[in-house]
C-alpha cells in the first residue's frame, strides 16, 4: 500500500491548492506588488484542472489504443511489411514540434478543444508506438516459438505471452506520453481550449508573474502526481508479471 502513498499525497496537495489558491494571496502579492489582482480569477482553478486532465486522459486513451493496436499489427506476420515504415514514423514524428501540429490543425478544426485534442493524440501516440514495438520485438524468439509450437493460437500467444512480457515497456511508453502531454496541453490555451495554461498565457500577456506562477505550479504538480502514479503502476506490474525484474 505504501506504493500508492506518494501519488495520493501529491493528488491531495494538487486539489487542495487548486481549491484554495486565494489563501496564498499574501505570497503572490509579495512577488507581484505592483498589480491589483494577483490571483487568477477568470475561471476556477478546479475547473481548469478538470478540463486539463480530461484532455490528457482522452488523448492518452485514444493514443494508447491506436498505438498498441498499430504496434501489434506491425509485428504480426501479415503486417510485417509495414514494420519498418511504422517504426520510422514513430521516430520521425517525435521530432515534429507540437506547436506546429497546432498551427496546422486550427485552420481545419477551428478554435477550442478539438485541435489541441488532435495534437495531443498525434503527439502522444509516438512514444507508445515506439515502446510497443520495442517491447514486442524484444521478446526472446524461443518463447514465442515454444508458445506456438505447443499449441497456442496466435491470439493466445498475444494475450497470454506477448502482452504480459511487453506490457512493462508499453506502460513506460504511456508514462512518457502522458507526462509530455500534460505540458503540451497547456499550449491549448493559446487557441481557446480551457486548460491550466490559461493563467500562464494571461500572465504573460499582462506581465503578471503571479498568474504565470499559479498556472506553472499546478501544471508541475499535475505532472508529478501523474508520474508518481505511473511509478506505482509499474511497480505493481513488476510484482505481478516479472517478480525478479526479469524480461524475456
Amino acid at each position, binding site marked *: 500500500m505504501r506504493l500508492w502513498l506518494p501519488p495520493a499525497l501529491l493528488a491531495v496537495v494538487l486539489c487542495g491548492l487548486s481549491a484554495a489558491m486565494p489563501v496564498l494571496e499574501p505570497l503572490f502579492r509579495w512577488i507581484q506588488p505592483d498589480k491589483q489582482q494577483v490571483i487568477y480569477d477568470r475561471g476556477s482553478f478546479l475547473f481548469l484542472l478538470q478540463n486539463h486532465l480530461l484532455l490528457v486522459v482522452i488523448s492518452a486513451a485514444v493514443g494508447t489504443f491506436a498505438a498498441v493496436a498499430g504496434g501489434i499489427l506491425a509485428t504480426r506476420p501479415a503486417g510485417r511489411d509495414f514494420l519498418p515504415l511504422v517504426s520510422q514514423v514513430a521516430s520521425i514524428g517525435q521530432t515534429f514540434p507540437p506547436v506546429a501540429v497546432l498551427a496546422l490543425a486550427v485552420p481545419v478544426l477551428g478554435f477550442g478543444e478539438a485541435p489541441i485534442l488532435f495534437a495531443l493524440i498525434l503527439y502522444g501516440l509516438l512514444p507508445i508506438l515506439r515502446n510497443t514495438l520495442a517491447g514486442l520485438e524484444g521478446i*526472446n524468439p*524461443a*518463447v*514465442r*516459438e*515454444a*508458445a*506456438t*509450437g*505447443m*499449441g*497456442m*493460437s496466435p491470439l*493466445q500467444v498475444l494475450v497470454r*505471452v506477448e502482452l*504480459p*512480457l511487453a506490457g512493462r515497456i508499453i506502460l513506460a511508453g504511456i508514462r512518457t506520453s502522458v507526462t509530455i502531454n500534460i505540458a503540451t496541453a497547456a499550449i491549448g490555451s493559446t487557441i481557446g481550449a480551457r486548460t491550466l495554461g490559461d493563467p500562464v498565457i494571461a500572465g504573460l500577456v499582462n506581465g503578471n508573474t503571479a498568474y504565470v506562477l499559479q498556472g506553472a505550479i499546478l501544471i508541475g504538480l499535475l505532472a508529478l502526481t501523474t508520474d508518481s502514479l505511473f511509478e506505482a503502476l509499474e511497480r505493481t506490474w513488476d510484482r505481478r*508479471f*516479472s*517478480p*525478479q525484474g*526479469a*524480461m*524475456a
Partner: protein
Amino acid sequence: MIELRNVTRRFGDTVAVDRVNLTIETGEVCVLVGSSGCGKSTTLRMINHLLPHSAGEILVDGEDTTAMNPQQLRLNMGYVIQGTGLFPHWTVARNIAMVPRLLKWPRQRIDARVDELMKLLDLDPATHAHKYPQQLSGGQAQRVGVARALAADPNILLMDEPFGAVDAITRENLQLEMLRIQRQVRKTTVFVTHDIDEALKLASRIAVMDQGRIIQHDTPENILRRPASDFVESLVGKQDRGLKLMSLRPVRDLMTPHGSPKPSRPGADVLREDDNLRLALSVMLWQDLPQVAVFNARGEETGVITRERIIQEGA
C-alpha cells in the same frame, strides 16, 4: 506413427529439405543427425506444422497433417527446444501446466499432474514449483522444458537440440534421464541433434541427413557397422567405431552369470548390468583387473565379465 512422404521444403530458390521419406514407428526414438543447415530442424518443424511443407505429405497416425487444425495437432505433440523457451513471467508449475490449461483440465487434475511430472524429472515440487525460470540452472530449466512437453501426455514428442546449450556433465545426466523416462512413457520421439554420440546413445533408429536429404536411416549398430557413404562414415568417426559399438551394448550381453545372485559387500565398486561394455573395459584398464563383478539394480552381484571376452566379442 509419423510418416513423411516425399516431403520437400523450399525457402525461395534454395531447397532446405529434398524429397524426404521417413517413417517413425510408434514408441521409437528417431534421431535426426547432421551438420548445421542440413535440414534436420526444418524437417522437425514441418511435423508440427510450424513450417508448412512445400510438397509431399506428412501423416500422423495415418492422418494428413495439412487437413488438421494446427493448434489441435500441436497440442498432441510435446515440443522441447534448445534454450527451453520457458515463459519468464510464469512460475515453473504454471509453465508445466501450460498445455493442460489450454485443454481446460480441471484444476485438481492439473495440480496432480504437475506434481507427478516434477517428481518424474527429479525436481522437488516443494522447492521448485514456485520459482521462476530465471532462478533455475540450465539443466533444471531444460528438465522443466521436458516436463512441460510431457504435461498433457501427448503421443508424440518433438525435441530440437534440447540439450545443446547445457554443459557436458548436465547433458550426460539429461540424456540418462531421457532414456529412463522413455522406458517409462514410450513416446514416439523425433529428436534433432548434431552430436553423433548423443544420437547413438538415445536412438532406436538414426536418420543421417546431409544437404536436405536422408543419407541413411537405420539402427545405431548398423550405422556404425555399415555406413552407407563416406559422409556417414566420417560422421560416426572411422577410427573410433570399435569403442562406439562397445558403448551401445550393455554388460549383460557378455557377462558370465552366477547361478544365483550373491549379496554384495558394501562399497564394492559397482558395475551394473545396464552399463555399457566400453565402461566395463575402462574400469578394468584403470584398475588393471582381468575381470570385474557385475551387479543388478538391487545391488546384488549377478555375474562377472572378463577383459578377454570384451576384446574378442565386444565390437
